[in-house]
């Protein structure tokens, strides 16, 4: 009962701040709104029985990736009143219509989707880690670490000032 209340609270917060991300003209405010969205999603992850992913969401997404975004926004000195308005209303209408169509299609599928969920489920970190290092996912794990290394080197090289 209290789970449901907390869930809807955070869901409302997530949708509200997502609307700010999409609608706000100032990119810095969008970034802060995205941080709020990520935080509320982390709370929902916790409610869905994955505390490890909830903590990881805050550490990786809200704590690192968004800091990166904020750094870039500050360094590039994004003008505060960035005009996003010179777009034809026809295109805007078409965009919102297409988004609505997507939501409708997937919503129809989800509406009829019912699977009985097990009553209690709380994946501890040790379980998730054991799954990560199991035979199914070990290769993916190592490949991902090489991917991160490549991204690290790539980001440093791309952003370097040419001498």
């Amino acid at each position, binding site marked *: 009962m209290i789970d449901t209340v907390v869930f809807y609270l955070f869901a409302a917060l997530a949708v509200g701040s997502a609307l700010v991300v999409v609608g706000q003209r100032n990119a*810095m405010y969008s970034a802060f709104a995205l941080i709020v969205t990520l935080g509320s999603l982390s709370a929902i992850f916790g409610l869905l029985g994955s*505390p490890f992913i909830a903590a990881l969401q805050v550490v990786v997404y809200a*704590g690192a990736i968004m800091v990166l975004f*904020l750094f870039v926004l500050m360094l590039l000195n994004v003008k505060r009143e960035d005009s996003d308005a010179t777009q034809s209303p026809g295109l805007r209408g078409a965009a919102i219509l297409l988004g609505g169509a997507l939501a409708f299609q997937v919503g129809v599928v989800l509406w009829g989707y019912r699977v009985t969920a097990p009553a209690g489920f709380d994946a501890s*970190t040790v379980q998730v880690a054991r799954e990560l290092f199991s035979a199914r996912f070990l290769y993916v794990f190592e490949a991902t670490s090489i991917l991160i290394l490549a991204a690290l080197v790539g980001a440093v090289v791309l952003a370097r000032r040419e001498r």
Partner: protein
Amino acid sequence: MSPLQQDLAIAAVKVVAIFGVLLTLFAVMTWVERRALAFMQFRLGPNRTGPFGLLQPMADGIKLFFKEEVMPAGAVKWIFLAAPAVAVITAFLSIAVVPYGKPFRAFGREITLQIADLDVGLLYIFAVSSLGVYGVVMAGWAANNKYTLLGGLRASAQMFSYELALGLSWVGVIMLAGSFRIQEIVAAQAGGLHHWNAVQQLLAFIIYMTAATAEVSRTPFDLPEGETELVAGFHTEYSSMRFALMQMAEYVNMITVAALGTNLFLGGWLSPFPSLIPDSTLWFLAKLVILLFGFIWLRGTLPRLRYDQLMSFGWKVLVPLAVVNILVTAGVLAYLGGGR
């Protein structure tokens, strides 16, 4: 009272108690720091307000309360106001999972001396300290001042670089205890002085204390708020209570990392001579005081690191050392058949 109401009541009492203790400790710490630093520097420190200057924190508080609150022109108002709040909130949030004593039985139920006993306790602290970077970033940017912006960027870069070394230093401890819960990590250090993680994971302990000093921006890593660099760094434009809030955030962060270090590496409330003297919260307090005094001692002794020295030390020395520590710990555990 239903169990839920009982839980809420107990949690409320714990929260109020820890809040009170933290605020008192913050005030006392400011006094201790100024006196201890003064004695180390062969001068006296505050000794006029009250006996031995003990009322100095109160005088500071009253002074800050009555100062004029200035907001610079062109500052982004909401973010400027929110930044000290974010800093203080994250500072207080991280203390919620730090235990300070053995669980005891009262009213027919077990009460842990910890506000929230999370299964992912250490990950939670990592998450909250990642959020602490935002207080600094927001404060630096919102003041519409290029020096605070630079100071904020440097401070936040320092914070999350050393957070990495901090987190990596915990991995060895987690491997030894087999859990992220801080209660279990403390329990895994039972059995005398030689079981403490400061002895079994000495390298991790040193890395932790170094990274913690950098994380809370204490000397020798206090470039972000060094009074002689960049005016006052990212909190230049704050005055009165907002400045007091930023200072409170810094001190509470320091107390948190010291308390965490006590629990993770020095055995928390466990006694070093379990057969002679029993475990109690007093041991925890004693170790906490030792670590806090260590922070003050460092401030009085070491010069400040330059920014590039600081960053290269964090990335090129601490992180590789922490990784080596993890590898060696994992290797020894696998050899001994740990199988966690």
